[in-house]
């Protein structure tokens, strides 16, 4: 916890004692010190490798969860979502737990580059499942409380930080765009409009946040993609709306039957 500032105190103490020489010029003592450094570097590299490998597993399996959720339609919703949630739980228990095990204390920020994409993908999958289930945003606190359960035996449990959460959320909007187009095809126009408002809200909120995030180059790029997604949903909703509003002299009726849109009445 306070492990690191302590190193800085050490730095300060070296500074105040710089005049009292610590003899270390014999060959053997230098060798000894470097043997320790060699150990440290080897261990750090090994750990980074393990983190990278666990991250690849998290990424790949989170992607599978997302594909699974996309398989849902009006008829199979419950079954498909349950499977997706089960798979997500498996990702958490099998692979996120490995990350949790490695990333204690300072390694969390130090090795962030090695795992950040995996955590983002995991956030994407988890929030996507939740939206499809309840239509609401799974918040970071809840995700982190799930992770907490994996790591009660460690003193400093891995907690996803707000940055990775927000980056994952940005990707979520891409999946929601796909979902919205699919829902319209399935005749669920109101669901699509709900997605539209949800994504507009996220986009607006992130407009305020993106510029003040750490190292926000990635986020900037994602904001552009997100705007494209928002507009795709808006355009799809627009298209359904004008088509549905068309005054059809032939039928002589002007009422809008959205449920009729998109859903072909096949003998399926």
């Amino acid at each position, binding site marked *: *916890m*306070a*492990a*690191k*500032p*302590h*190193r*800085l*105190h*050490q*730095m*300060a*103490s*070296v*500074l*105040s004692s*710089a*005049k009292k*020489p*610590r*003899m*270390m*010029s014999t*060959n053997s003592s*230098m*060798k000894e*010190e*470097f*043997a*320790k*450094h*060699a150990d*440290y*570097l*080897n261990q750090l*590299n090994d750990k980074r490798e393990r983190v990278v490998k666990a991250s690849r597993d998290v990424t790949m399996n989170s992607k599978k969860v997302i594909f699974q959720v996309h398989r849902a339609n009006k008829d199979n919703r419950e079954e498909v979502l349950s499977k997706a949630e089960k798979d997500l739980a498996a990702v958490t228990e099998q692979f996120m737990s490995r990350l949790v095990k490695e990333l204690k*204390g*300072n390694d*969390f*920020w*130090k090795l*962030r580059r090695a795992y950040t994409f995996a955590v983002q993908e995991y956030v994407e999958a988890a929030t996507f499942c939740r939206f499809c289930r309840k239509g*609401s*945003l799974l*918040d*970071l*606190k809840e995700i982190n409380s799930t992770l907490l359960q994996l790591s009660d035996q460690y003193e*400093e449990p891995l907690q996803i930080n*707000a940055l990775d959460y*927000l980056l994952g959320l940005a990707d979520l909007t891409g999946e929601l765009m796909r979902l919205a187009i699919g829902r319209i095809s399935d005749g669920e126009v109101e669901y699509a409009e709900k997605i539209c408002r949800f994504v507009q*809200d*996220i986009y607006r*909120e992130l407009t*305020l*946040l993106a510029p*003040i*995030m*750490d190292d926000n180059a990635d986020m900037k790029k994602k904001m552009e993609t997100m705007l494209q997604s928002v507009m795709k949903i808006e355009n799809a909703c627009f298209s359904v709306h004008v088509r549905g509003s068309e005054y059809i002299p032939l039928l002589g009726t002007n009422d809008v039957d959205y449920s009729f849109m998109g859903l072909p009445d096949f003998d399926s």
Partner: protein
Amino acid sequence: YSMETQFEHFRAQMEESGNIRERIRSVASEIESALRVMHAGLLLVHQSLSAAEVLKKANAQIEVLRVLYDRLAQILSECPGQYYRYHSDWRSETQTAVSLLAFSQWLETGSLLTHAEAENKLGCLCFMSNELPRYVVNQVTAGDYDCPRNVLKFLTELHSAFRMLNLRNDFLRKKFDGMKYDLRRVEEVYYDVKIRGLAPAESTT
């Protein structure tokens, strides 16, 4: 409204870490100023001032640095566990700091600074080795023919210690490659001095 609340919370978090970052940068910039003065002082060693005079100038800055590092440690202690989050904001200054301290301590005692964080320290040793060829050349020009042998001995040991490490293809490996050339250059000066019979007889150390 839940989404708004969460984002409001994030906004507060980001603003807070933005403030911390700003405070860290401001301290880092003061550290940098102090280091510039210290460095300018140490560089006089290449103009053959005596080590004692050089060190007096350099040491004057050490107290300044101590206070600044206390302030930095104070800020970091306010955000436990995030040491590496802000690392890039004070890393390069600290590398320079350790380098200069190591160099001035080596000038004073011929020994290496102990107790520094591994990666920082390794980078600094490389940096320090970069200064040594220049030091040796200027010392010989000023008539100190004993210097090359000592520096060479030190650098040879340092180089052989470094070889124990498995470095990734990164910053550190490049620096270490550079050290080979520093070593070569010091050897050449030693050779020049030796072949002309200018090197003093070796004392038994």
